[in-house]
C-alpha cells in the first residue's frame, strides 16, 4: 500500500464526519456514520446526545444514570497489515465543559473471534480551552499488537461514571 492509500484508509470516516453536518441526535442513534459508532456496556444506563458540526468531528453530551464498565467511540480503520509502518498515531483537538481524561487504543480483531487492545501511553486531557494532543505507537515495539488483523478500530474510551460534554474538534490519523 502506498502512503496515500494508508492515509486515506485511516482517515476516510473522519473526512466524512468533517465534511458532513449532522444535527443533534438522541440516545438511540448509536451509529454516527458508517464506520463510526458509540458502544457502551449494556449494563450501563446512559443518555447520549451527539452532533457533527460543520468542519468538526463530533460534539457529544452524555448523562450517566447507571455507571458501566466501558463506553467508547469506535472508528473503523482500514489497516489490516502493519508491515512497514514505523509509527502509527493520531492528532486531536478537543474541548470539554469540565476537564476529562480519555484513553485511546487500537483494537485489532483476532481470527476466530475476540480482539486485542493496544493503548496509547498517555491520556488525552480535554479541558474548556481547546487543546491539541498527539500520540503514537511504534508497532515493532508492541509485540502483542497483531501485525495482521481482519479488522481494526480506533477507540476513544469516555467516562462511564459521570456525564461529559465534549467536542472533538479535529482528529486525524497517521501511519508512517
Amino acid at each position, binding site marked *: 500500500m502506498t502512503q496515500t492509500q494508508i492515509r486515506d484508509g485511516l482517515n476516510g470516516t473522519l473526512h466524512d464526519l468533517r465534511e458532513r453536518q449532522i444535527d443533534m441526535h438522541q440516545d438511540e442513534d448509536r451509529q454516527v456514520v458508517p464506520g463510526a459508532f458509540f458502544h457502551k456496556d449494556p449494563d450501563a444506563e446512559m443518555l447520549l446526545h451527539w452532533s457533527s458540526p460543520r468542519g468538526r468531528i463530533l460534539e457529544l453530551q452524555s448523562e450517566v444514570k447507571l455507571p458501566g464498565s466501558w463506553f467508547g467511540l469506535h472508528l473503523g480503520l482500514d489497516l489490516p497489515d502493519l508491515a512497514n509502518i514505523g509509527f502509527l498515531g493520531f492528532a486531536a483537538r478537543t474541548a470539554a465543559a469540565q476537564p476529562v481524561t480519555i484513553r485511546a487504543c487500537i483494537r485489532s480483531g483476532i481470527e476466530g473471534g475476540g480482539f486485542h487492545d493496544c493503548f496509547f501511553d498517555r491520556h488525552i486531557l480535554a479541558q*474548556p480551552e481547546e487543546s491539541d494532543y498527539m500520540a503514537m505507537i511504534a508497532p515493532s515495539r508492541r509485540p502483542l499488537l497483531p501485525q495482521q488483523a481482519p479488522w481494526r478500530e480506533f477507540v476513544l474510551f469516555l467516562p462511564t461514571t459521570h456525564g461529559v460534554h465534549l467536542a472533538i474538534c479535529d482528529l486525524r490519523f497517521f501511519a508512517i
Partner: protein
Amino acid sequence: MANSAAVLDLALVIPTWNDAEGLSRLLRQAADMGCFAEVIVVDDGSDIPIRLPTDAAGMKLLRHDRPRGPGVARNNGLAAVSAPYVLFFDADDLLTAELPDLVADLADELRAGRGFDFCLFRHADSRVTAEERWGQPIWDEDLWQQAGLSVAILQAPPAEVWPVLARTANYPWNKIYRTAFLQDNGIGLGETLVHEDVVLHWLGFLAAERVLVSTRTCAWHRVSRQSGRLTNLCGPERLQIFTPLEQVATAMAAANLAWLQAFAIFALGLVDWNASIIVPPLRIRLRAREADFLRTAMADWPRRLESTDPALARHLTDRMKGVG
C-alpha cells in the same frame, strides 16, 4: 427580529489608518474566503490615501480628510452598509479559516427561522500564540467557562449568563451584528480615541433579544507594542475613558443586579488597566476623574449591590472616595 433571509449576507467594515500593508493582507484574505457580500474600507485620514485593489468588486472606500478615530470610522462604515449583517474588523488583525463555517452556521439559524441580534465568537490572540498556544487569553476563557459555553459549536445562552459574557474583552471584531439591530437601537461606536468599543459592546448586550455564541475561532488579534497604535497611547487621551463608561452606566440605570455587578467589575478593572499604562504624571488626574465618575454615574450602586456583593459595594464606595 424577523429574519426571512436564507443566506447570511455579511458586510465587512474595516477602519484603517496608515496601514496599507495590513489592509491589503486582510482584503486578500476576505476575497479568498468569499463569504462577504460587501466590504467597506474607511480610510481614517491616512497620510497617503488608501487605494483599493483594481479588482475590488463589491468594495467601497470612504475617506476622512483627517484622522477622526476608529469609532467615527466604524460608525461611518456602518452607515454605508446595505447588507443585513455586519462584522467590524481591524486592518492589522486576521480572519481565520473557521469564519466561513460560522457564516454557514448562522445562515442555517436564519433558515430555521431563528433570528439573532449578534453572534459572539471566540478569537485567538497573539499574546497566547507567543506562548505557543492558540486561543483567547485566559481571562476571557475563564468567563466563557463560567458561562458554560466552552464546547457547543453554536448556542443561544440564556439571558442570565449575558452579564458574564459582557465582561469579556470589549472588542468590536469578535461579533457579527444584525445591521438593523444596531440601527434601530441607535447603537454604534463611541467617538473617543480609545475605548470607543465599550459602548457598542455593552449596549449591544443590553438591547439584544437573542444572542448567539460560537466556539469557532474566527479572528486572530495581533497585540503589538509598536508605536502609533491607539492601544499603546498613554497620554491625556486615556482620560476619555469616562465618556463611554458614563454612557453605559446611564443606560444601566434600570438594569438588574447581575448587570450592575458585571459592569462595576468591568469599569473598575478598565480604570485600573488605564492607570497602569497612563504616564505617571496623569495618574492622579485619572483617579480623581474616576472618583467623580463613580459619584455621579454610579452613585447608588453600592447601596443596590450591598446585598448581593458586599465586597464590591465597599470597593466602589472606597473608589468614590478616591481610596482603595
